[in-house]
């Protein structure tokens, strides 16, 4: 049987990839996808702990994380379309209206 550590290490690697993507990419949609990747790595951690501790609560939390991700996708993509209508670009460096 696989140990819990292998799942946690995979999850840590995925989370770091997502975090690096959020920090280095400038395309808003790619940043959005990297956030989804980070959420998924956390879900993997929840389910791995749920199995190795013999408890169902972690999987319910995964359910709620998925709901929040779906809501975030709807609102975030609507925001991006509204931004693209105004600026003709979704580069995050053009998001400078509130910068001083």
């Amino acid at each position: 049987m696989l140990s819990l550590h292998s799942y946690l290490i995979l999850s840590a690697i995925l989370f770091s990839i997502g975090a690096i993507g959020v920090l280095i990419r400038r395309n808003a949609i790619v940043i959005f996808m990297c956030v989804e990747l980070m959420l998924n790595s956390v879900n993997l951690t929840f389910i791995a702990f749920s199995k190795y501790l013999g408890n169902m609560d972690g999987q319910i939390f995964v359910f709620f994380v998925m709901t929040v991700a779906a809501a975030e996708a709807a609102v975030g993509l609507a925001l991006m379309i509204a931004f693209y209508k105004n600026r003709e670009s979704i580069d995050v460096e053009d998001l400078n209206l509130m910068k001083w």
Partner: protein
Amino acid sequence: METIFFTIVAAVTVLSGIMVVTCRNPINSALSLILTFFCIATLYVTLDAPFMAAVQVLVYAGAIMVLIVFVIMLLNIRSEVGRRYTHAGIIGTVVGFLMLVLTFNFLNNSSLTGAKGLITTDVINKIGHTELIARSMFTDFLLPFEITSILLLVAIIGAVILSKKKI
């Protein structure tokens, strides 16, 4: 056998995750992300969570990724050309690697101390994963479940208002 399977799936997951970050064209990133989601669903199956694997494929690889690919194609985003040099690239990568090293350090010096629950593989096979989830969700987690419906309502209203012609 199990270890070999896990190694292969984990390698595909990490490689497609790296592709999400490194691809210039957002469509390629989105397709790599779908592959990552499918690999994570496979890992859920190996973790005795078949219902969560089904939901992962339906909600993430289905609904959310369709929405993202739809928006990418609607906005007709071209791939980034002539990337300008920024310090953010170097600093972001270094910070990400530091975070990874810290996490590894933490994982190597830790062990599982929580009390073991009653849900073993035999129980899941006997009762069924979906039923176990439903029991837990509609008894212990009923209030969070109801609050989730309000969150979804707010998200619907927000999306409708944001996509109006004049905000």
